[in-house]
Every structure is written in structure tokens, then in C-alpha cells.
């Protein structure tokens, strides 16, 4: 009986929380008549893809591609640089406690404070509206997270394995690339996916630092808002295109989700 009540409550809460996502998805399959019907229709009479084909025809999907390029390259860079740094901290305590706390504290800085000077610098360097400009910033923005997460994962690797490899004549760098990285691959994988999601969802930097050439999909979405002429079909279809990859990533990631979003504070 108690379980039945709990189950009902759980079901209601889950439906409530998923409803906005459901609404977004169904609108993307509706015809204009159904989108702008009063009262609203809760289930499309037929599922049609024209809202998506419009995005392809008008070239709006290029913003998904831009997001993909920027998020993946910056993830790769942040993982490489961040994991190196994390290894030095985990093994040799390089820089001491102050250094690792300083790295983490960088995550506290509000983006609005960073983005203004960076924008003016980028204007001088010609990096506004380029892949490189956005990639550098996202790499830097994600570094504290990667360092902090990878430090936790690397500390779990037993020292003895590395030491025996050193005795066998490996250099430190060989130990890092041939022993440590393969052993830490689940941690690397989990951290990389979160880093990717952060970059994929990021808005403020992209809003400021892109014009048209490398506009990312969240920025493109906000272009559809405005006044009375909301492009509902485009908003919903673009939102779905920008959300499905994230849902797929999370589906593969259930095991690491807790550790990932709590900055390693909770071992999931």
C-alpha cells in the first residue's frame, strides 16, 4: 500500500518534470496549424518532419555543426592539458595545495567578468567569430573541471604499478602515456563527456564572441526569439537537435553522472 502511494507520487512527479521536454518534442513534429491552434493540441495528429527539413534547407543546422566542432576540439584540448596537470598534482604534489585550490577557484569566476576583456582582446587579435577563439576560451573554461576530476581518478591508481614500470626502465613520460592513461580511461571518458556537455550548452561566451561564421546552436536559438514573430517550429526543432546528443551521452553515462556533476565530491 505504502509502495503503491510512493509509486504513484513518483510517476506524477516524473511526468511533471518531463512535460516541458515532451512539449518541445511534440511541437517540433506539429504542423503550423496545430502549433498555433487555440486551445493548444497536446498530441500531434500526424508526425511530420518538415520543421526539421526547413532547418536543413535554410542552412540553420550549420550551427549544430559549429557547436560540434567547438565542443569536441575544446574537449580534446582541455582533456590533454588538464590531465597532464592533474597527474603532476596527484603524483608529485606539484605546486602544493595552494595551486590545486587556485585552479579550482577559477571555476568560481563569473563568465560575464571574463568575457568582456577577452572580447576586446579578441577584437585586437582578430579572433572574434572564429573557431579558434571560441575553442581557446572553452578549453580554458573547462580546465579547472578536468584538473579537479582527473586528480580524483588518478589518485585511485596504485603507485606500485607505476614504480615497477620505472624500475623496468620506463621514463616518467612513458609511464604517463603507456600505463597511467590506459588505467584511467573510464575516468577520462566520463570527464570528457561532461566537458563536452558544458561546451555544447554554453551560451554567454558564444553570444559575445560569435557573429555569423561560427554561431553555435544556443545562440541561433535566441535569434528565433523576439517580439510577436516567434518561429515556434524552428525553436522546437532546433532545440531537439541540440538536446538529443546530450540525452544520448547521458544515457551512456548514468554510472558517472553523480561524480561528474558534483565535481567529484560524491563518489557515485
Amino acid at each position, binding site marked *: 500500500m505504502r509502495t503503491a502511494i510512493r509509486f504513484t507520487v513518483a510517476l506524477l512527479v516524473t511526468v511533471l518534470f518531463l512535460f516541458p521536454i515532451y*512539449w518541445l518534442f511534440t511541437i517540433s513534429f506539429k504542423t503550423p496549424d496545430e502549433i498555433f491552434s487555440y486551445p493548444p493540441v497536446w498530441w500531434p495528429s500526424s508526425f511530420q518532419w518538415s520543421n526539421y527539413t526547413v532547418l536543413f534547407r535554410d542552412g540553420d543546422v550549420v550551427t549544430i555543426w559549429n557547436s560540434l566542432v567547438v565542443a569536441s576540439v575544446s574537449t580534446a584540448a582541455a582533456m590533454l592539458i588538464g590531465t*597532464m596537470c592533474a597527474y603532476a598534482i596527484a603524483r608529485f604534489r606539484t605546486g602544493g595545495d595552494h595551486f590545486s585550490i587556485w585552479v579550482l577557484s577559477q571555476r568560481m569566476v563569473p563568465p*560575464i567578468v571574463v568575457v568582456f576583456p577577452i572580447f576586446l582582446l579578441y577584437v585586437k587579435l582578430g579572433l572574434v567569430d572564429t573557431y579558434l577563439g571560441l575553442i*581557446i576560451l572553452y578549453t580554458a573554461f573547462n580546465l579547472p573541471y578536468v584538473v579537479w576530476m582527473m586528480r580524483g581518478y588518478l589518485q585511485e591508481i596504485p603507485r606500485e604499478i607505476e614504480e615497477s614500470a620505472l624500475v623496468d626502465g620506463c621514463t616518467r613520460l612513458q609511464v604517463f602515456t603507456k600505463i597511467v592513461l590506459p588505467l584511467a580511461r573510464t575516468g577520462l571518458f566520463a570527464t570528457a563527456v561532461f566537458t563536452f556537455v558544458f561546451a555544447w550548452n554554453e551560451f554567454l561566451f558564444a553570444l559575445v564572441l560569435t557573429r555569423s561564421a561560427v554561431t553555435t546552436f544556443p545562440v541561433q536559438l535566441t535569434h528565433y526569439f523576439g517580439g510577436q514573430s516567434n518561429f515556434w517550429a524552428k525553436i522546437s526543432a532546433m532545440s531537439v537537435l541540440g538536446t538529443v546528443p546530450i540525452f544520448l551521452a547521458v544515457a551512456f553515462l548514468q554510472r558517472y553522472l553523480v561524480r561528474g556533476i558534483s565535481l567529484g565530491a560524491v563518489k557515485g
Partner: protein
Amino acid sequence: MTQQNVHRHDRRFGYAMIAPAVAIILFIGLFPLIWTLLVSVQNISLIDEDTSFQGLLNYQRLMSDTRFWEALGHTLLFTAVALPLELILGLALALLFLEELPGRPVFVALLVLPTVISPIVAGAAWRLLFDNRFGPINQVISWVAGEPVTILWLNDPNFVYAAILIAEVWQWTPFMFLLLFASLTNVDPSLGEAARIDGAGFWRTLWSITLPVIRPVIVIALLIRGLDLFRIFDVIWALTKGGPGTRTETISIYAYVQGFQQFETSYTAAMAFVIIVILTILVMAALKRVEIAR
């Protein structure tokens, strides 16, 4: 190699490994800070490239800028309402799922989804839901009321805060839920059972046994969310852009407007610096409270 040589070698290796990270973090961490300080005491704007020393001119102007202080007030209001709401709702959900339940892993996996989507997508979804004519929210309210109700959620000053808070709490309650749920499942159940045998009720056990055990996780979750709320930009930008008027403008949005729409370079720099100072004070105070309470 002697022991000492090995150590020296390792130390050099360590510095080489952190060098790229340090360079990049200095680029986003230190350069903007120094630049901000320097420019904030000059007088650069769209019409004037005055790089002479102006002292605290911009800071004085900021002190008497009611729009800035209102924006700070809005930011703190959002934080003060959303943070406890997310914590309490997240905790309630975590307790709901704590005992075994059919299909529990599926529920948990689904409930997490709002947290991982882009805040702009979240804002887009709620824009569609809140639409006064074609959105389902007014429709449901009309059913309940038994007569057509038209609430202008995003334009009516009486409702716009509720609208933004609903979207915000919807997106981040699952975050709290996930962290609290994970840490609660790690708590040894015999602790609670022992308390219950001693005659403690559900609430007493929760308050005196369970919550103190997961306190560190609660602190971390509040810290992460508190910092995010202090910089809140995306979801409000997607829903209202700070409107109607400047009613929902936060410090991040106001700084964006001054910097990128009014091109008040020096003034924005002063504002950015004050934001950092306020943030530092708030974080210090929060951490101190945590230490004292411990």
C-alpha cells in the same frame, strides 16, 4: 641515479606537466582581472578613448547607479528563493526514492534529464509553455478555474518572477535530487534503524541522524548552485532578456547591456570588479559559516 637526482627530475617533470594549464588559466584568470582593474580607473567608452587616470570616478558613478543595485537585488532574490526551493524539493525527491521502488532506476534516469539540457533550450521550452494563448499552462489554469484565464507570464510584472523561478527550479531541482539521492544511498541504513528503535520518528531521524551525515554533500551542492545562481544569465535571457523593462535584470545581464550594447568599457570594467569583490565576500562569508557550524 641517486635518490636526490630522481626527486629533482620528478619535480621538473611535474612543472613541465602543469605549465600549459597554468599558461591558459593565467590567460583567463589573471589577464582579465588586471585589465579590468586598469580600465576601470580610466574613462573609455564608445565616444571617448580617454585612457588618463580617473581615480574612482566609475566606482562613484556605480555607487549611485540604482539600476545596478536593483540588478544585484534581483540576483540575490533569485538566489534566495531558488536555492532553498531546489534543496527542499531535491531532498523530498531523494527521500521518496530512497527505499526500493519498482522501476526506480528508470525514474532516476528520466528525472535527471532537465539538468543536462542547455539553459537556452530550457528557456525555449518554458517560453512555449508560458505562451498566453498557445501554451498549455494557461489552458490548464483555465480548466481549473472553469473560465478562460489569460496570464501574460513573461510580460506581467506580477508573474514574471514566478515564471523564471519555475523554469530555474524545474531545471536544477533534479541536480540537487541526484546528489542528495546518491549520498543518501551511501548512508549506512543501520544508523537510522538504531534511532528508530530508540523511539525517534521519521522527521527526528532525518533531522538529527541523516542530514548531519550527508551535510558535506549538501554544502557542496549549495555552493555549486549558489555560484551558478549568482551569475544567472542564460535562462533569463531566453525568457525575458531582463524585462519587462528592467524588472528581471540580473547583474550579469546589466553588465552585458552596459558592455556590449552601450559600449561603456570603463564603466563595465568597474562593474565587473565590484561583482568579483561582492562574490568574494559572499563566498568567504559562506565558507566561514560552514566552518563555524562544523
